[in-house]
Structures are given as C-alpha cells and as structure tokens.
C-alpha cells in the first residue's frame, strides 16, 4: 500500500506522458507514426526472408504470392506494427541490456483522447480500448448479418454469388465470436476486476497492453480477407477440413487472425489468473470474491487450457495448404475428423468462455438491483467450477453425425445433458434472488432479467440438441442457428449490454440516458425473438443452414425473419446514439448510483488513476444487501469497523 502511494506522490503534477519530440525524432517515438513506417519495414523483411529462402532452396517461383502474404502481411507486418506502437519497448530495452526507463507511470491513465491510441498500461484505459474496439467489430459483424438476411429474404440468388455469401456468414461468425463476445467480456473484466479486488491494476500491465493491441490486428485481418483475390474465407467459422484447405487465399487470413486473437485471449487470461490469485485486497478470501471475479477466474482457466487447441487446428490446416503436409488430407494418410476433434476441444469450451463472464455480470446486476444477497452464493461459484470441468468432456456432441466412433455418442450425450444441472442451478438461483426483492428495473436490470429468460429458451433448445436422436435430425439446420443465437445473443450479448449500462457511469463518470436505454432493450428484445424464434421451426421442418438458396416452402418465414432482423439491426442505432451523446453530455454520475456493495463502487466515477488511495480492507461478503450494518470493505482511512469487530457482531 505504502509504496504505491509513494510512487504516486513522486509525480504530483504529472499529466500523462511527456509530449512527443518535434521534428524527425518524432518518427522514433513510440506511437502510430512509428508504427506507420515499422509495419511496412517488417513486411519488407518478411518478404525478403521468403524470397531468400526460396532462392536458396531453388523453389520456383521465387516470388510466390501466397507465402509472401502469409509471412509478410500476416506475421511480420503485424509484429512491426506492435513494435512501432511501442508494445515491446520496455522488454526490448531490457533484453538488449540497455538501461530500462524507471517506471514513472507515464504510460498510465488517459488525459486526452490521444491516450487511447497509444500503448497504455492502465487497466481502465485498456478496458475502454477493448470495449470500443469490440463494439466496432460488433457493428461490422452485424452489418454482415444484415447482408446475409438480405440475400435470404427470397429464395434464389439476389445480391451475391455463392463464394461471397459463404464469406459473409463466415466472417460474421468469426468477428462476433473472436472480436466481439470474447474480447468484450475481457474488456469489461479488464476495467472491473482489479477494482473489485481492491487492486491498483492488473498483475502485468505491459502484457495487458500488448494483449489489447493484438486484437485490432486480428479483426482487420479477418475483415480485409474480403479484399484479396478469391474473396473472404468461406468455409464457415468452423473451417472444417478438407474444405478449408482448398479454399481461396482468404482462408489463411482466418487461420492467422485466429492466432492473433487467440494469443490475445491467452495473455489476458493469464493476467486475470495471476491478478485474481495474488492481488486480492487484504481480507478478500476466495469466498468473498464477487461472482463476476469467480466467473472470470473460471473463464480464464478455460481460455488458458483450451485456446491452444484452436491455434493448433488452424496451424495444421494452414500447413496442409502452404507446406503440403497431410494432417487432414486422406490421400496423404491424414484424418479429416481429427480436425473436428481438435477444433471442438477448443470451441465447445469456447461456448462457456462466451457465457460464464455473462453469468458473472448477471449475478452482479441482479443482486444489486433486487436489493438482496445472491441466492446460494457458494453453489453459484461451485456451479461455475462444475461447468468448467464438465465443459471439457462434451466436445463431441458437435459431432454426433460426423462419422466418429459411434460408441462415443452416448457418453458425450450424458455429459452434455448433465451440464444442464449446474446451468439450471444458476438460473434457479437468479430467480430466487429476485424473489421478494425490491426490483429496480433500470436498464441493466432489464438486460439481466431479459438474459435469464432468453437463456432459459436457449438452454432448453440445447436439451433437444444434446439428445442424440433429435440432434441427428436437426444437426446443421436452422434449429442450430436459432439455438446458438439464443445462447450467444440472448445470453452473451444481453449480458454485455447489461454490463455496459451497469458500469457506464463508473467508466465515463456520466449517466446514460435511461429512456433510450429502455427503448434499446425493448426494441432488441422484441426484434431478437421475432428474428430467431421462427428459425427453430424452419430448422426442424427441413431448412439446412449455411445455404444461400432454399426450398420455396420456407420463403414466407425467411422474409419474415429478414424483416425482423432489419428491425433488430436498427435497434443498435439507439444504443450508439445513447452511448455517444451520454458520454459527451450525460449528467455527471455519482460514485455509486446503484448503491452496490462491491469495491468498484466505493471509489469515484471515474475511479482515480491508481483506483484506491489506500488499499481497502475487506471485511465481509459482497452481496449483504438488507443485512443491517453489514459491510463488504472498509476504505479511505475509515477504520470504524475492522474484521474482528464485524465478526464479533
């Protein structure tokens, strides 16, 4: 505690980083300007290495476009960009033995909008960087979905050829999963978790900055695949081999984009784990952590264990393509189902990576806005752990019709259906929390309760999919499309919105517009159900997914769905308008507008640069609403109630 305050006080008048030097020296100063020349330089170095190797090995042609794109544009160029913007400066200095700059926290905090465009080590700034970046890719992915629905409004081909259409839904899914849901949760947690723990920052602030800057690289890579010859990657976000091996050039943009996004996830997850394990404030035992922290703890374990598998699967596909290996090529002795096993060993846990943080957000919002302790706190935390463990034993339920060993289906069905038990515990506990509460239906609560109701529908359709005989019928149909949107839109996205509205006052220091927030919720809620519920029906009736054209019997429903989806898309405009205007002109927010007990609300809005002037002392559970005299933490020299005193009460 004391060292922190000292460092802080050592620079009393500091207002951010020293101004950049003038003249040509500015080119050497870490930032976007240096990145603008270092990225092409590294691209050139990458090309040089390729040409040199090919010339030396005697391979023709020496200028081989595909490899040059891969090594130059997808690997070396981004590394140059990161080096240019300054993500590696400290480590490079250290590695080459030159004196490192003493940490003066000049890379910490944001004093103008420019500070969001540089390598910043403040977890609050990084959290906002994450959120704005992911919302950008959310809009991009959403627009792609609008194009998909435009094409599907009528049977036959309307606007796109098949390659473009397949690219649209592939990039839509990839952006939504890898550039929106997963990192948006990471962004919210980045802002909130250190505050909730009573910590001044994340454990590794420079690693945190690096993991953010990997994200725009991954997103731009996936989006820019539309611009290369042959069009975007078009084998679906699942990229099943052998189809994905023999696709146009855009496929390697997916293979590599996943690597950058995956590296970002893994670094953040490690950072969360170390932060949660080592940086809890005194008195913050595991059983006093808010459920959002528990959720991010389990999610981070999932990320660290599972993500290397998708990295491997995409490398194998790419090696099959560019290095002529035969991992999944039958003619060379490969095994196509191997891809699916490796892929789903990540991508099923990924479903929980995309849902558990949302469970955490829902628990925070529902408890605070029902003015009641969370029902069954320990069972809520334990059910997260149960989902974590079970989540690794169910991957092959995506493969019931794949041709894998038939005996594997029944055990995988049993574990799959068993996940309904911890998930059910969570749903019932949220309902028991709102029971007899004092429900304040501000916007975050609407999203949280909306999430619970939609997630129940998504969970029940999951039971259909878990039962093998039904899955055999509905696998790869619109029923699956409906199911995943009920869990990832009604589940993940609803909780992301709940979190954004809930912490908006804390992040910006201003209050969002409540009327617009509610309007946004209702438009989305209605539009969402009108769009996705009918998909269950056309799926069971026989419409396969991932098709640009379909049998005339589904024409009416598809037109209906397309119109509903445009309304759903339009609801996002209300959200954006609310965010932008409230950020600039919203009413100043109180420190604790929701009267929450958790630590992030006990500091000003927005929080001071090092979060707490003094490390708080945690003395009780985080959800003791309605318990007379109960406190979660004591801070700001307020030593009225110490731990022993609270215990003796």
């Amino acid at each position, binding site marked *: 505690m004391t060292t922190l305050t000292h460092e802080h006080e050592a620079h009393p008048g500091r207002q951010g980083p020293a101004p950049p030097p003038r003249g040509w020296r500015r080119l050497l100063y870490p930032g976007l300007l240096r990145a603008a020349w270092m990225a092409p330089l590294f691209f050139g170095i990458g090309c040089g290495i390729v040409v040199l190797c090919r010339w030396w090995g005697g391979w023709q042609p020496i200028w081989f476009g595909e490899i040059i794109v891969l090594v130059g544009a997808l690997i070396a160029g981004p590394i140059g960009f990161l080096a240019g913007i300054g993500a590696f400066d400290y480590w490079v200095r250290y590695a080459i033995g030159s004196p490192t700059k003493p940490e003066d926290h000049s890379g910490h905090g944001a004093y103008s909008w420019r500070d969001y465009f540089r390598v910043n080590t403040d977890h609050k700034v990084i959290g906002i960087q994450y959120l704005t970046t992911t919302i950008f890719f959310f809009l991009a992915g959403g627009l792609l979905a609008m194009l998909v629905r435009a094409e599907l409004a009528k049977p036959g081909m309307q606007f796109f050829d098949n*390659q473009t259409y397949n690219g649209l839904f592939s990039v839509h899914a990839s952006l939504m999963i890898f550039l929106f849901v997963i990192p948006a949760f990471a962004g919210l947690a980045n802002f909130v978790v250190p505050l909730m723990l009573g910590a001044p920052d994340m454990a590794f602030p420079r690693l945190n900055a690096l993991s953010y800057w990997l994200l725009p690289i991954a997103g731009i890579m996936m989006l820019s695949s539309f611009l290369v010859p042959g069009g975007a990657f078009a084998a679906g976000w699942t990229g099943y081999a052998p189809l994905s091996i023999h696709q146009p050039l855009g496929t390697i943009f997916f293979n590599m984009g996943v690597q950058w996004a995956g590296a970002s996830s893994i670094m953040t997850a490690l950072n969360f784990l170390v932060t949660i394990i080592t940086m809890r404030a005194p008195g913050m035992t595991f059983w006093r952590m808010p459920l959002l922290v528990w959720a991010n703890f389990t999610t981070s374990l999932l990320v660290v264990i599972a993500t290397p598998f998708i990295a491997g699967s995409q490398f194998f596909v790419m090696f099959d393509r560019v290095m002529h290996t035969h991992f999944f090529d039958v003619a060379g002795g490969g095994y196509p189902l191997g891809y699916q096993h490796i892929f789903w060993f990540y991508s099923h846990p990924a479903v929980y990576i995309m849902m558990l943080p949302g469970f955490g957000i829902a628990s925070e919002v529902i408890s605070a806005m029902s003015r009641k302790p969370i029902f069954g706190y320990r069972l809520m935390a334990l059910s997260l752990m149960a989902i974590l463990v079970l989540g690794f034993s169910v991957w092959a339920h995506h493969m019931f019709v794949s041709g894998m060993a038939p005996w594997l289906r029944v055990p995988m*069905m049993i574990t799959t259906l068993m996940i309904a038990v911890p998930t*059910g515990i969570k749903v019932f506990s949220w*309902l028991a929390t709102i029971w007899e509460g004092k429900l304040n239906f501000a916007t975050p609560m609407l999203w949280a309760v909306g999430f619970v109701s939609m997630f*129940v529908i998504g969970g029940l359709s999951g039971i259909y999919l878990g039962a093998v*005989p039904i899955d055999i019928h509905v696998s790869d149909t619109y029923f699956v499309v409906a199911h995943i949107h009920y869990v990832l839109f009604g589940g993940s996205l609803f909780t992301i919105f709940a979190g954004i509205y809930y912490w908006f006052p804390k992040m910006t220091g201003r209050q969002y517009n409540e009327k617009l927030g509610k309007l946004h919720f209702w438009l989305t809620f209605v539009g969402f159900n009108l769009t996705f519920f009918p998909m269950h029906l056309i799926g069971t009736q026989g419409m396969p997914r991932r098709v640009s054209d379909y049998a005339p019997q589904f024409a009416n429903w598809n037109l209906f769905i397309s119109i509903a989806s445009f309304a759903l898309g339009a609801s996002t405009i209300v959200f954006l308008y609310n965010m932008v205007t409230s950020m600039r002109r919203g009413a100043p927010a109180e420190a604790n507008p929701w009267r929450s007990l958790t630590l992030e609300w006990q500091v000003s809005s927005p929080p001071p640069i090092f979060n707490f002037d003094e490390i708080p002392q945690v003395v009780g559970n985080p959800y003791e609403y*309605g318990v007379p005299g109960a406190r979660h933490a004591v801070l700001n020299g307020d030593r009225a109630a110490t731990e022993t005193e609270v215990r003796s009460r």
Partner: protein
Amino acid sequence: MRRGSIVQLIVIGVLAGAVASAVALIPNWLPSSASREAGRIDFVFWFVTGICIFVFSIVAAVSVYSVWKFRVKPDDDSDGPPIHGHTGLEIAWTAVPALLVTAIAIVSAIVLAKDDAAGANPLRVNVYAQQFFWSFSYPGYGDKKSDVLRLPVNRSVVLEGHSKDVIHSFWVPEFRQKQDLVPGLTPTLHITPNKVGTYPLICTELCGLGHALMRSRVVVMEPAAFDKWASRKGA
C-alpha cells in the same frame, strides 16, 4: 407465502404452459414421417418437448410473478429480506433436473440403439457424394447405378457413405436420419422407409460453392416396382 399468491403463481404457470403447448402443437414442427426411425425420433422429440414445457412453465411463472409483484419505484431505497439460501431448495433444483436429464438420456440411448440396428435381410446401398451431386449404387443388383435414391418400402436399408472430395452430409428430413460422408471413412446409416413417396435429399454440411443446390430425391417404391426397376439394365 399467502394462499392468494400461490394461486396466482399457479395460474401464471398454467397460462405459460398453455402458450408453450400451443406453440408446440399448432405449427407443423416436423415434416411428415416416412421411416420407422422417424417415428422413434419423433417420440424423443415430443418426450423432450413435454419436459421442456414443464420446466418453462415453472420458470415463466416465477419470473413473471416476480417482475409483476416485486417491482418498486426508482426512489424506493429499501432493501429486500436478506435471504442467503435454502439448502432444501438448492438440493431440489440440483436433483430434479438431474433426474429429468437422466430420463432423456435413457430414452435417447434406447432409441439410438434401435435406430442403429439393421433389420433382417437389409438392402445395401452405396451413397457417393461429391461437389456437388449425389450418386448411388446397389451392390446387390449388379452394382446398378442411379442419380436418384430408390428404395423399397418396409425393408431395412443400410446406406454406406463415401465422399470423393470434402465432407458432405446426407439428410432426408422425412426419414429424420442424417450422416456426414467423410473422405477416407465409410460411415453407415440405417433407414427403414415405411411410406411410399418422393422426398428431398439435402446436403447439410457446407461443402463449397454449390452446397445450397446439392440436392437430390429419394423415391420410396413398392417392393415389386423396386425389384423391376433394380433388375433393369442401365440407370
């Protein structure tokens, strides 16, 4: 809890159950059934639907009632009762769902075992998938070839899947059966058609540019007509 609120809860639950049942029963959720396997799969479908309507009604009753009764004005600063948990309830909502999903798992496993077993004297058919069309051959009839899958009614059929390029998936919604055809593997699928007619055959695994149009037909015929067709030379 007062008796009045219990009645209100039950009324909401029954209403929610009625709405859910209407959604389940009024539209035609499943295409017509044309195989013995389809009949069994439909049984699982309706069994699960029944359980889901039950769970949905309970959840809807509690949430609608709570939203209706426990909402307060924004300026109400009071707190709710500090209830931290209830061990009995928590055991109940762990055990009951566990029992329900176990029941679903048992029913599913039995149906799966039946659907995976070939009947007596099955007809063997090779299914060949390639970008972007289907073809079939009948080893029992001098390797007769066809672009349309013709099957006799009420005879067990074993389809052996072959893919020449990427992964495709064989699906006939009226049969409810589906199987991916993977290069290098020869997975089998069992079907016993029990209704004469013509049904669509759809590829359900994204296989490239022509995926949406990779369709064919299945014609289920009287055994005599099938024998006559199958014994004829040529396609």
